[in-house]
């Protein structure tokens, strides 16, 4: 297994590997997304309490879950880059940031849109939404920090440090806001626990979660390949790879 990780550190190997994987993985992931969406939209039964607006859950929950997991992936890549000084880990970390930010954005907007017909307001300050909003700022912060540095090698290190600091904070932020709001929020606004979810709704939800994870992986690989193309323009291995494809 270590061999694979060692190989991934090599740009030519990773470029080819990602290319091969993406060729079949991306269409499959897109298919899963469509199947899951159609299932959730048209075939899952309406909710007893919320009617049809709950169908947004099939996007909101997967996006939130993957957005949060993505931040840890980004921080892990940053840590690998700092400790072992592997440049590909830098590339990975930077590839995750925009994907995570986009997913967080989706989670926030779908959460708001879900809130309006369900609870009457576009925005409800509860622990999860607030933590999601902060997660968005954490992602944007990493991206902004990278842009602000002129020396890109230093920029990558700075982003790694920032991601790690954010990682430590995320559980604290969530817990603190949760305690704070639970003192002030009527319980009716809280989303009734997933343990009560019916299997006819659970399956499409699980499918969508898997699909979103797959999409995350594909987008990160796509970003990394695009980045490698940019930084290794003159490299002979790259020219050969491109010529082979043609």
């Amino acid at each position: 297994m270590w061999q694979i990780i060692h190989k991934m550190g090599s740009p030519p190997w990773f470029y080819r590997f990602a290319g091969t994987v993406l060729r079949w993985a991306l269409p499959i992931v897109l298919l899963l997304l469509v199947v899951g969406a159609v299932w959730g939209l048209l075939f899952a039964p309406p909710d007893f309490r919320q009617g049809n607006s709950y169908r947004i859950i099939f996007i909101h929950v997967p996006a939130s879950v993957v957005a949060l997991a993505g931040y840890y992936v980004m921080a892990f890549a940053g840590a690998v880059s700092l400790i072992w000084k592997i440049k590909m880990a830098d590339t990975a970390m930077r590839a995750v940031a925009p994907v995570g930010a986009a997913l967080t954005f989706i989670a926030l907007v779908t959460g708001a849109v879900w809130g309006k017909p369900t609870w009457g307001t576009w925005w409800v300050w509860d622990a999860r939404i607030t933590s999601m909003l902060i997660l968005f700022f954490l992602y944007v912060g990493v991206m902004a920090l990278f842009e602000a540095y002129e020396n890109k090698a230093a920029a990558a290190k700075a982003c790694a440090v920032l991601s790690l600091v954010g990682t430590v904070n995320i559980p604290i932020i969530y817990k603190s806001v949760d305690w704070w709001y639970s003192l002030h929020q009527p319980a009716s606004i809280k989303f009734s626990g997933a343990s009560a979810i019916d299997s006819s709704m659970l399956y499409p939800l699980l499918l969508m979660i898997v699909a979103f994870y797959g999409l995350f992986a594909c987008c990160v690989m796509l970003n990394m390949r695009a980045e490698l193309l940019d930084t290794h323009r003159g490299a002979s291995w790259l020219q050969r790879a491109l010529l082979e494809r043609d």
Partner: protein
Amino acid sequence: MPPDLWQFLWGQMRRQLRVGMSKPGEVLNPLLFFVMVVTLFPIGLGPNPERLALLAPGILWVVALLSNLTVSGRLFAADFEDGSLEQLALASHPLALTALSQVVAHWLLSGVTLTLASPLFAVMLNLPVQAIPVLMASLLLGSFSLSLVGAIGAALTVGIRRGGLLLSLLIIPLYVPILVFGVSAVSEAANVGDPMRWLALLGAFAAGGIVLAPLAIAAGLRISLDS
């Protein structure tokens, strides 16, 4: 800790304090900022005393946060510009501890003075008198954590031109738990509840911070110096 390291750190701290106090503006300006912003709230929200009392913990804490934000940007700037930061990084003493001593000095000048002035603002916002000791305790503990977090951001952005706005973007998310714990403590005290739980959390955050933050600060400083 070896005696010469301790002496070095103590000397560092005293130097920072001396520099800070030689320019009284550096200490007074954040305080004045605090006063003026606190004054804005009764004007903006209306003078209804019950409403102000209800909102006072939140207002006081948010403004404390903002005032820490404004001074954090300058924490390492002067040393970075005149090259002394580079010297400190190359010295044999651990940069993390040196940075911590600077943060402590900075806290003494900003957070502690804020804490001492806070009863005045509490009265301006009609905070119940029984909550004032807890307010001061929460500000004392919390402002230390704020300084630590602010220093992390300052270390990462010190080399960036006009890094102030970026600094705010970076550390505001990290401020949130401190804000929550602080406001909850004061709120509980005002409503004759149990603030100790929240003060304990503030203490825990500060304790964790004092161990972990200097590492991040030193890493950030080295990165900024290298760039």
